[in-house]
């Protein structure tokens, strides 16, 4: 797209604007299959807005002026854009078991085991929201086949989508049972009951209530049971959410670099992410995922390379040669959050665990090509190590 822009003397952002799927075209059938075998259908998103926000946060107009000034002084600033869509929440399924135990605590179990991205927080938030309790009243169990029979796993930007949806459905079913039990015990109409603060109460009469703990203790089998006919013991429901296909997140990244044409060194001056991953549950955790993804993308763009010699001997066998980005290599990342809720699951969630890593190689390579416009450089290989950059410059 940047080559098209150069050829037609258009701004690279403008070329993208003219070629985006527009929001009024959603849902948009791309005409090819996704890796889950289903036809790709972009379900929601406002791609022009995502890019507009990225350019605004980057100060694009000002950067173009700066670039022009610096060129007069023989300095090469480059601005690169990378836009993408990401198929998130892939199947085949994920489950959630929701149980209210005798203490009134909501215990949830799932087979999607976290690695530190924050399942304990996000799933507790969702459950707390669904049940009208605080996240501290929710306990998460993961990775235990004794707690939930089936699980798929955590990968592919899928956990919040699928576990969140499973939590929603399991909770909806369990709520129905809880309300039926409470209606029976409070001698009230099921439709006059509400949930809040860990209790079920009669609307308008908060003193007529039962706590979750009381309800759980009423739902025991045997002589102590207070269950009406037709309700089985225990307050527990399991639901396995099977998504029809992925739901589509999108983002626009802007990379600002300066390249030293003598040494080939690229300095990353600024990095902006404007992203849309549907309904966002926890902003801090969202940014954590984005930062980590972008850092990995920067590694791919500038530092990481697996090298073999002509005999197949691995040359980059240690971190001395395989360079991982450190705190000096990853700049401060600016993030703009947009939300186009997914129509494909009850909570409108899309995934974002990996998205950050998608665009940096494109954005940074485009930034280099942009910086080297006077050299008519072709940038087609990564990582853009200094020697590769010098080759690119000399090749003109």
């Amino acid at each position, binding site marked *: 797209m940047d080559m098209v822009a150069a050829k037609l003397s258009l701004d690279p952002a403008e070329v993208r604007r003219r070629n985006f799927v527009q929001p009024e075209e959603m849902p948009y059938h791309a005409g090819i299959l996704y890796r889950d075998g289903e036809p790709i259908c972009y379900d929601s998103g406002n791609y022009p807005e995502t890019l507009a926000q990225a350019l605004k946060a980057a100060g694009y107009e000002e950067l173009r002026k700066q670039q022009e000034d610096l060129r007069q002084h023989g300095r090469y600033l480059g601005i690169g854009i990378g836009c993408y869509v990401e198929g998130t929440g892939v199947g085949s399924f994920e489950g959630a078991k929701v149980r209210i135990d005798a203490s009134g605590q909501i215990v949830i179990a799932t087979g999607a085991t976290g*690695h*530190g*991205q*924050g399942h304990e927080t996000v799933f507790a938030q969702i459950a707390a929201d669904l049940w009208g309790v605080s996240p501290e009243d929710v306990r998460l169990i993961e990775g235990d086949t004794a707690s939930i029979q089936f699980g798929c796993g955590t990968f592919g930007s899928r956990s919040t989508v699928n576990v969140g949806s499973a939590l929603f459905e399991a909770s909806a079913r369990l709520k129905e049972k809880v309300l039926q039990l409470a209606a029976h015990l409070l001698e009230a109409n099921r439709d006059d009951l509400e949930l809040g603060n860990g209790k079920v109460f009669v609307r308008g009469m908060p003193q007529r209530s039962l706590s979750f703990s009381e309800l759980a203790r009423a739902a025991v089998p045997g002589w102590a049971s207070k269950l009406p006919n037709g309700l089985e013991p225990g307050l527990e429901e399991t639901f396995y959410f099977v998504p029809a296909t992925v739901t589509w997140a999108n983002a626009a990244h802007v990379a600002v670099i300066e390249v030293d044409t003598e040494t080939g060194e690229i300095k990353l001056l600024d990095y902006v992410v404007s992203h849309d991953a549907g309904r966002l549950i926890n902003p*801090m*955790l969202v*940014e*954590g995922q*984005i*930062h*980590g*993804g*972008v*850092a*990995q993308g920067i590694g791919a763009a500038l530092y990481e390379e697996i090298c073999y010699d002509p005999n197949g001997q691995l040359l980059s066998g*240690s*971190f*001395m040669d395989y360079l*991982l980005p*450190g*705190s*000096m290599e*990853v700049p*401060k*990342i600016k993030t703009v959050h947009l939300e186009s809720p997914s129509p494909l699951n009850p909570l409108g969630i899309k995934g974002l665990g990996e998205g*950050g890593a998608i665009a940096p190689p494109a954005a940074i390579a485009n930034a280099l090509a942009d910086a080297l416009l006077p050299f008519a450089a072709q940038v087609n290989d990564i990582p853009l190590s200094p020697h590769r950059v010098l080759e690119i410059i000399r090749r003109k």
Partner: protein
Amino acid sequence: MIAKRPIELTVNGKQCEGLVEPRLSLADFLRDHLGLTGTHLGCEQGICGSCTVLFNGETVRSCLLLAVQVNGGKVLTVEGLAGLAKDGEALHPIQQGFLEKLGFQCGFCTPGFLLTVYELLSENPSPSEDEIREHLSGNLCRCTGYQNIVAAVLWAAERLQKTS
């Protein structure tokens, strides 16, 4: 058969001893002999920093040091950090900062970072963001992109200034 050597050292304020082969790394001694598994092994080549501990007040790569080399010395591992907190606080301010600011995700690199930050804030109680990034440039993290780690350090620095 290489004869084992006796060693004596202080770890997290407690006297410890061991009978070790000369080739045993400090990391393996801490993890396998003392059961202090907070010190992690990411590369065993001294680059990733997840094995970082303090030896006589300075950060070292425990994967590259031999246990026999620390005989008679003082080692601080991540397990000893909370014990250095003031006024019965459950966590050291540096650890609290990492909690507040989401300075960790999988946690593998975290002990190494905590001790490196401890060294930084001991030398430079009010570091700038650039100074922080430079001091931490020897510790690799794949999860966080470093931004929240820097934020955690700034939080901890401010907290430590307040309570000192």
